[in-house]
């Protein structure tokens, strides 16, 4: 997997988020503070603007992570930023699934989310597991990413009935039930764009 693929991923992710900005903000209005769409869009526009075509895949993602950390703010900035940063730090030396896992570990380390806390973790973790399983099963990359994207979608949809226990939505208690987590929704775009970039 070469840098061009990840370059395409970042651009495609940025495009998808831009297209879904209003939806992400609408979801964040229901159980948060109505800024998730604008935050991610601002950060990803900066990421795309800072893409260096001459670096390897690892530094490419690590730079994207640093840019997100420096431009997004809020909860999503450090979390998505750490995800790309940790992934990029190891990407050139380990299998793709391992790099994804490193990214996920970074998110957990920063945010301490567990399964069913109704956060981006609930979409990200199943997607990473799906890639790991696909790798273990010897699936092709397109098949692996299709499985990952489906797992992210499923995990995201599964946040709807949950009571939030992390982040801003947790302030709502029971009132958070019935709403889809905005960060998890962004994760579905992350894997949809990854899949379409391969």
């Amino acid at each position, binding site marked *: 997997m070469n840098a061009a693929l990840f370059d395409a991923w970042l651009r495609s992710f940025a495009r998808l988020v831009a297209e879904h900005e209003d939806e992400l*903000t609408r979801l964040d*209005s*229901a*159980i*948060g*503070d*109505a*800024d998730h*769409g*604008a*935050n991610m869009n*601002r950060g990803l526009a900066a990421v795309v603007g800072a893409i260096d075509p001459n670096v390897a895949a690892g530094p490419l993602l690590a730079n994207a992570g640093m840019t997100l*950390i*420096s*431009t*997004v*703010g*809020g*909860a*999503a*900035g*450090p*979390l998505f930023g750490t995800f790309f940063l940790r992934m990029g730090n190891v990407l050139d030396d380990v299998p793709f699934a391992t790099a994804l896992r490193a990214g996920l570990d970074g998110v957990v380390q*920063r*945010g301490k989310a567990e399964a069913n806390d109704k956060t981006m973790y609930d979409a990200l973790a199943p997607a990473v597991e799906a890639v790991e399983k696909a790798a273990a099963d010897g699936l092709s990359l397109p098949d692996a990413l299709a499985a990952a994207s489906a797992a992210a979608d499923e995990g995201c949809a599964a946040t709807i009935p949950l*009571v939030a*226990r*992390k*982040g*801003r939505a*947790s*302030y*709502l*208690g029971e*009132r958070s039930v019935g709403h889809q987590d905005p960060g998890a929704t962004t994760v579905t775009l992350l894997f949809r764009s990854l899949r379409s970039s391969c």
Partner: protein
Amino acid sequence: MVGMKKLINDPADVVSEALRGMAAAHPDRLRVDLENRIVYRKDAPRPGKVGLISGGGSGHEPMHGGFVGVGMLDAACAGEVFTSPVPDQMMAATKAVDSGAGVLHIVKNYTGDVMNFEMAAELAAADAGTEVLSVVTNDDVAVQDSLYTAGRRGVGVTVLLEKIVGAAAEEGRPLQEVADLAKRVNDNGRSMGMALTSCTVPAAGKPTFDLAENEMEVGIGIHGEPGRQRLPLAPAREIAELLVDPVVSDLPYQQGDSVIAFVNGMGGTPLIELYVMYNEVAQLLDRAGITVARSLVGNYITSLEMAGCSVTLLKADDELVRLWDAPVNTPGLRWGA
């Protein structure tokens, strides 16, 4: 460009233009780094003085930029509206205000703020060897502080803390003492807020939530998030009870206690209504045998144009009152100077 009732140009420019406005309005007291979105006390760093930094999303004005100045903050980092600033800002501010005496980060307890400030502190310590301590404010009794939440939000106490700790730092007290005092203030303060209307995040362009004419949200924070409960609209007298009772019973504040009482407007509520509320709050405290040592009434920690208010109590001993009374000279809070 314009599709909501705000005095703005492009929603994307609100924060930077407001910072330009602050710079233009207060050149005597503030220096504004527009690129990094940091409001500095003009004469920072002050030799030998612990640097006090706060910051957070914009939309809460005068907090925090309006609390920069003599006797209060040395710097405030402004994020986008309702979005925590990024670590680069806190790092830059930390380095700029460190005179060698170290820096205290005053952080409101929100996942984003805590993570971004944490990253900044890690980086600042590694980078410049600056000693950084942090205090996280979490005074909002509307939220359970449990495993099932991100913990209580930092709200009104943040304002009182920045004033009181600012006075202590101004006296030249060492970092650990300043940080301990900050923790003590936070531990002795509690708040609760309510909204009559939602606010509209400029970039979102429409109200964060819809409230019917006869409804209000109780247990809100300061980011336009819906509250804990939606209730039928009630008279000021009942609203005061809904706010004061959970605050008083939480610490708890007891008969004979002396407090700083703070009735805060959410941004769209005029002063006449805040005084009506203060009248109710004062009566409730009086009935509970709680003495008001000092009071503050006004729009100090706001949520854009939201109508509503919050009540904050801070248990006050002689030292806290003395520090509260010490001179302060900021755009948002000023006396004795």
